[in-house]
């Protein structure tokens, strides 16, 4: 059996370790939440049932809801031959079934991947991306980034990872709805509810930061996957520079609806949101470019 001489190309155990650690911390946090819910045995069970229902809807229908919100429409090979041809070749290389391909009629150049599984995936590109005049290799790099999200099942991973954060958020909302803070009667039940709310607030706050960190790691992994899949890290780097340069110049008037789904785009829909890096769902551009240039050096045999 011939082994690839590039088998070491693209390995990053540091990134994988950080990702596992983040997931471990999230899990730990959620154990605390469940523990608090069980210990107080309030009507929290109802909340969990609602949350499980929401989770089901999210898993099954999130792609359709997202596609409708973004105004994406599916395109055929005759409509967008280049897009189809590039994705088809990437699918052969990635050993994936062909996803649905959709276009969002927006001037903002961007792309995203939706769908819970490899079989139910949709790759979206905006009109702005297609008319940006990217070289085929650059467009291929962007699409390979999205294909890697599909391979890594990032929609599923992020949905599951944020499941308990959703429960915590629901509990906080329900608490205000039922006016748990109000009233003078301080019996044991009210105290138990307060404990649950307190735990929920803490869980929500910490998981928010952890989820953003996880999202950034998944972005790095998708950049890396794109580079490995195409063998052209510098083409993706060049595309990222062109896309982010254009996003900053275009007034943010058409993809505003997409802000809630920013995590699934190749470049965040909010161009200038880097108040603090810990709250960002995407890593800063410079870090992504630096990671890609390390990969190019590895590929050329000049790097570590």
């Amino acid at each position, binding site marked *: 059996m*011939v*082994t*690839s*001489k*590039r*088998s070491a190309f*693209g*390995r990053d155990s540091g*990134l*994988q370790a950080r*990702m*596992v650690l983040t*997931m471990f911390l999230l899990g730990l946090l959620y154990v605390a939440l469940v523990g608090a819910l069980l210990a107080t045995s309030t009507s929290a069970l109802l909340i969990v049932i609602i949350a499980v229902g929401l989770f089901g809807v999210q898993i099954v229908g999130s792609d359709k809801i997202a596609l409708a919100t973004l105004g994406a429409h599916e395109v055929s*090979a*005759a409509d967008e*031959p280049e897009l*189809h*041809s*590039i994705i*088809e*070749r990437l*699918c*052969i*290389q*990635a*050993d994936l*079934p*062909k996803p649905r391909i959709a276009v969002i009629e927006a001037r903002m150049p961007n792309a995203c991947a939706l769908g819970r599984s490899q*079989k139910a995936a949709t790759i979206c590109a905006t009109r702005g991306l297609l008319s940006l005049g990217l070289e*085929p*290799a650059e467009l*291929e790099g962007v699409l390979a980034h999205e294909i*890697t999200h599909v*391979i*890594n*099942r*990032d929609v599923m*991973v992020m949905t599951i990872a944020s499941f308990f954060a959703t429960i915590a958020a629901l509990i906080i909302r329900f608490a205000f709805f039922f006016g748990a803070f109000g009233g003078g009667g301080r019996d044991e039940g009210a105290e138990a509810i307060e404990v649950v709310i307190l735990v929920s607030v803490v869980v929500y706050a910490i998981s928010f930061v952890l989820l953003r960190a996880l999202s950034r*790691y*998944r972005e790095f*992994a*998708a950049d*890396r*996957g794109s580079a*490995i*899949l*195409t*063998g*052209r890290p510098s083409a993706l780097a060049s595309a990222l520079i062109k896309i982010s340069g254009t996003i900053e110049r275009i007034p943010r008037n058409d993809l505003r609806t997409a802000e809630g789904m920013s995590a699934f785009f190749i470049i965040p829909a909010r161009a200038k949101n880097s108040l603090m890096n810990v709250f960002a769902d995407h890593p800063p551009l410079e870090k992504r470019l630096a990671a890609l240039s390390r990969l190019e050096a590895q*590929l*050329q*045999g000049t790097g570590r």
Partner: protein
Amino acid sequence: MGLRDILTGRSSVKQPASRERLFALSTAYVTLETSYQITSAGVAGIVVQSLATSDFQSVLKDTEDVVKATAGEYKATVETTDDEFGFRWVIVRNPSVEDLVATINAVSTSIEEGGYGERLLCAVFAFKAADNSTLNFIYNYKRGSWYPFVPAPGDKQRSTERELQLKAQIGSELPIEPELERWFPLWGVPF
């Protein structure tokens, strides 16, 4: 891809499947020719993802040299071309399907031995039907499976009906890709 790879988001590119299935075309062709009057167009091409590194380019150059040297044995001609998506095509011409398969295998083996097996995409074999229309059989290196690809008149049109007929006709002899969503078309085949 295991759960661990999903959780850590670790990517790798799949290596080619066992190459015996490529040779299935040689025997299947006998049936194609005698039962269905489908004849070889005498040309086949292999699609390789071209890397812009000196190591890869020298492996590719060595491959071409080796194949060109052995091509004389089979009375084959070998040429290379790059398509608009940056993929390298190695095109082989030879009237005998058996020799075409052997030469294509020599190309892929040489690239694999050079350490770039994961950059092999597929091989396309062109045929002519009784009515002189073109049809192709495509071999997917990742999966080690075949599928028919029949372009139809019009822009980027394919005759799925004809492809399904071909699957029924030759499916017992050629390992056909079971999932239809993996029957990827290849437009702009440079031969």
